[in-house]
């Protein structure tokens, strides 16, 4: 509750606080992070059930304001609030003085917390939509290029998806006997025939597939990422994407287990094709932001495929990789932002040799790039390993295809690093000052997390393990009956 | 009020049994007849006067105003809005009289309640009249 309200209130205050707006926003964000750590402290490890439930009647007796935390939620909250603070801090620089931007970022953090905490269908939907509004304004107000058309496309794509989800939720509600509610447990308990489940699932999946994005629905993504301001790209790729993936784990498979057999091959197929498609296109990109956008498409495809295997390795790997991917992509976008602000461009052909001018930056950037490439002892490695293993077990051919991602990823990431940082100095890089204290701090924290999680990923697996186990059991019960 | 009694005494029941048939094209006959009468009356009235009326066209007959004086200018001559205003006000208060006929016929039966109702009616009309007066609607020259 407070995790949702504090950032939103901070957002409204910040919008009208003028010069102080950014600090009000930062304060709200940091408070939310502190509360998250408080929850982490109270969190009982090894318990797969929802904990710390807060339940009040909201719209009517059918729609509650109900929040609860289990292992999966806990990880997502950590991700949201850690990155929320980092993104906010990275956006505070001399060129941007409009308090509304910071207000929107922190408000978005609150809405995202609401998405992850919600234990009621309509509440989930409401926050899902609410998270869309700040990002729309961030992208439309501070974006570049053809930003209106791009953001409108993005908004309409996601809005159609979420309306379909709303229709599915209402359908489930109507299936209940009188006195039904939108409570998570009640929605799980609805029995559907397979045809019904496929249709209901299609509605829910549409919302998530647009956000993730799964392959045929990805066309909004590269443009939006490229044209959004850096903070917007970070929010979109580091956190908002994860809403879709989280939705798959929490709201899609458990609610329509009857249709699981139908959807598993579809999602894995779309995911793996996305892996290859994103990677191949990323290799050809010269715009660094666009390159990262396609790399994100590729990574996320693998995560979705891992979730769809419905195995312990797949899901745990997915959650671990969601966390790591969030951190890596924040680091990448931040580094690109630094390059762009100093060199005035982010075209790969027109810059080079930054490492000589800014060795500290080069070193930290390298670690982030290695993390994204999933080198052992960085955070990308354990998650990717688990995911690949799960997909490989599902089907060898798919596994091999997915495995190519490591090679491709190394190609485009290292190509990007090599062209921009190494080699002869090119472009306006002669006056490339090394990192300032604030930037150094942020990059330092990112790198520390990259290495920290790479060395000891087990704590994330421990937190989410029991809940993942329970989720899989719930689904397998029904699937077992079907088989 | 005794609603059950009202229901059992409802005259509709007899009527309904008479008026309702099954839905077949024949049952739409009353509507067709009604429409036919409505259109037919207009056509008949216009057509009959056209056919039956004597037609002697002379230059004088075709004139807009048959008053013996030479016509000057066009018939579509803009007339001061004041004429219309006065005419409309006259019609308004004239029509009011129509409502007095039924009241006058039922004067005794309606009793004091009817009297109050008519008083309110007239009162509202008077308010309108005074308003027109105050607004200057009755002044010919301003």
């Amino acid at each position, binding site marked *: 509750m407070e995790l949702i309200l504090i950032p939103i209130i901070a957002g409204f205050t910040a*919008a009208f606080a003028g010069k102080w707006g950014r600090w009000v926003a930062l304060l709200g964000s940091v408070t939310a992070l502190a509360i998250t750590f408080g929850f982490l402290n109270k969190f009982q490890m090894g318990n797969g059930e929802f904990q710390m439930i807060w339940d009040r009647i909201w719209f009517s007796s059918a729609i509650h304001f109900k929040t609860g935390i289990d292992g999966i939620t806990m990880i997502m909250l950590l991700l949201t609030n850690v990155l929320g603070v980092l993104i906010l801090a990275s956006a505070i620089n001399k060129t941007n003085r409009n308090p509304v931007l910071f207000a929107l970022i922190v408000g978005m953090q609150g809405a995202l917390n609401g998405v992850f905490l919600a234990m009621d269908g309509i509440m989930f939907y409401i926050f899902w939509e609410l998270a869309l509004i700040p990002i729309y304004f961030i992208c439309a107000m501070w974006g570049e290029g053809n930003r209106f058309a791009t953001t409108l496309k993005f908004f309409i794509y996601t809005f159609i998806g979420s309306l379909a989800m709303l229709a599915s939720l209402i359908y489930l509600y109507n299936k209940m006997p009188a006195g039904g509610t939108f409570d998570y447990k009640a929605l799980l308990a609805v029995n559907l025939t397979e045809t019904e489940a496929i249709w209901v699932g299609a509605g829910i999946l549409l919302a998530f597939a647009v956000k993730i994005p799964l392959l045929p629905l990805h066309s909004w993504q590269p443009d939006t990422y490229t044209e959004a301001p850096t903070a917007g790209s970070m929010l979109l790729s580091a956190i908002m994407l994860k809403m879709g993936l989280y939705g798959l784990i929490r709201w899609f498979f458990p609610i329509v287990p009857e249709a699981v057999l139908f959807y598993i091959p579809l999602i894995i197929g779309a995911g793996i094709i996305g892996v290859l498609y994103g990677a191949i296109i990323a290799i050809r990109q010269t715009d660094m932001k666009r390159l990262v956008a396609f790399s994100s498409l590729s990574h996320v495809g693998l995560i979705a495929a891992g979730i769809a295997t419905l195995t312990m390795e797949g899901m745990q790997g997915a959650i671990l990789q969601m966390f790591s991917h969030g951190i890596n992509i924040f680091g990448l976008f931040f580094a690109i932002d630094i390059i762009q602000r100093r060199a005035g461009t982010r075209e790969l052909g027109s810059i080079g040799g930054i490492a000589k001018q800014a060795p500290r930056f080069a070193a930290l950037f390298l670690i982030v790039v290695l993390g994204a490439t999933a080198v052992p002892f960085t955070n990308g490695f354990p998650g990717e390993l688990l995911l690949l293993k799960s997909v490989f077990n599902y089907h060898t051919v798919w596994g091999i295809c997915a495995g190519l991602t490591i090679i491709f990823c190394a190609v485009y990431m290292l190509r990007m690093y090599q062209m921009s940082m190494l080699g002869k100095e090119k472009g306006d890089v002669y006056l490339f000052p090394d990192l300032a204290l604030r930037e150094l701090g942020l990059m330092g924290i990112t790198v520390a997390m990259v290495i920290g999680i790479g060395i000891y990923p087990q704590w994330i697996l421990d937190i989410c393990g029991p809940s993942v186990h329970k989720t899989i059991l719930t689904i397998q019960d029904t699937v077992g009956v079907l088989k | 009020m005794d609603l059950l009694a009202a229901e059992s005494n409802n005259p509709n029941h007899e009527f309904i049994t008479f008026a309702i048939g099954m839905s077949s094209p024949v049952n739409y006959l009353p509507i067709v007849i009604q429409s036919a009468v409505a259109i037919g009356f207009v056509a008949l009235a216009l057509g009959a006067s056209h056919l039956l009326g004597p037609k002697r066209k002379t230059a004088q007959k075709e004139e807009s105003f048959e008053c013996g004086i030479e016509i000057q200018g066009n018939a579509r001559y803009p007339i001061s809005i004041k004429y219309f205003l006065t005419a409309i006000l006259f019609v308004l208060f004239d029509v009011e009289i129509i409502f007095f006929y039924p009241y006058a016929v039922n004067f005794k039966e309606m009793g004091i309640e009817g009297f109050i109702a008519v008083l309110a009616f007239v009162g509202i009309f008077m308010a309108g009249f005074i308003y027109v007066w105050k*607004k200057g609607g009755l002044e010919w020259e301003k």
Partner: protein
Amino acid sequence: MKSLLIIFIGAIVVLFTGIKKPEKKSIGLAIAFLVMALALIPFDMMGKLPWNFEIKYAPINMVAFDISARAFSGVLILGTIFILGLFSGSDRKGSDLIGLVMFSLCGAILMTSFTNLIMMFLGIEALSIPLYVLAGSKKSDLRSNEAAIKYFLMGAFSTAIFLMGCAFLYGSSKGFDAFSLHDMSAFVGHNHMSPPLFTVGISLVLIGLAFKVSAFPFHFWSPDVYEGSPNRTTVFMAVIVKIAAIAAFYRFFPLIIGEAQAVTWGTILACISACTILVGNIGALRQKSVKRLLAYSGIAQAGYLLMGILIAPEKGFQALWIYSLGYVSANVIVFYLFNKVSAGGDETFAAFRGLGRNNKGAALVLCLSMLSLAGIPLTAGFAGKYLLFSSAFSDYIYLVIIALIGSAISIGYYFRIFKEAILMDGEARVQMRIVDILLLGLAVTMILGVGILPGFVIQILQF
């Protein structure tokens, strides 16, 4: 009844006291009367007898101020207070226009509370005739004259059709009162018949009402009329007329559908509703003038409102009420801001340019009302849409799907206003009086209050 009388007397008083004063001096008095009427609503007759059909529609009463009548009257009076308060009058002498607005409101209240077709007809006429004058109240403006003539012709046409329908209904059910109508429809439904007079009568009355709510295929007049009329009249038409007509629809529809015919008429109405939603939303996409856009958006909203008539009375009533609260406040805000920024004569989207930079508060309020019209969560628009869609879902699933598609389309044009207002630079500027700020604050409170706690707001209806 008490509030109706107060408004009527108030209108006459305002007319007389305003003869020699400039128009804007009379507004305060008019609002005082309206506030009094609003305060009297809870004390009106017929206390807690909301859904008891026999008592509500006893043939002895021509009007019944049951709970739905009072709730809708409340929305209408509140809407009129917003309109009169936010659109300051001119310096011209005489307060006829304000008096006409109040007379029109009397008609609207009759439309929410009739139990007899004659009263419904009276209500429609009392609502419409002042509006013909109001639409043409900018005498020197050609477009205003055009709008008045168009509105008058359309209005007269629809009223004639409506009256014809009433005559047929009288012919078949031998009475104008709700009781005999309901008796007839129950009898018809019970015996599985479809008597021609009755059927044709219902169709004609429905057509007449569809004109008033501007539902497909009788919607074509509204963009032209909205565009030409003065802003205050346009918002009155968009808000008061539409809600009153929907309330009349809501009261009339259950009377004439018996058991057997519920499906037939329900399907017809569902088709009308679906077409209205699509036509309104698609039509709005191509508009350049803000007023035409709002007219088409109003058509689309009428489609959503019609869904409320299809669902069971009590649920439908709650949904309609919540929806109309949001609709009234959002529309009033948009029209108010549009009225201010278009004072220079520019009536396209470009009029809004620069609002975000020059008036942050006004831009925020505009965004909020747009979000509410588009039905984004935590605004009244979403609460209303949610209630409508979820109640209609079990019986009219295709209609709900079309309505959802319509909502998605509507983003396309509502966000265009965002774009102009917030992202483009320009000279739009709004100077607000204290009264304006208070009323806008009230409207925003309604949007957010209904949006965040609709359950609590529905509780108000229990009193």
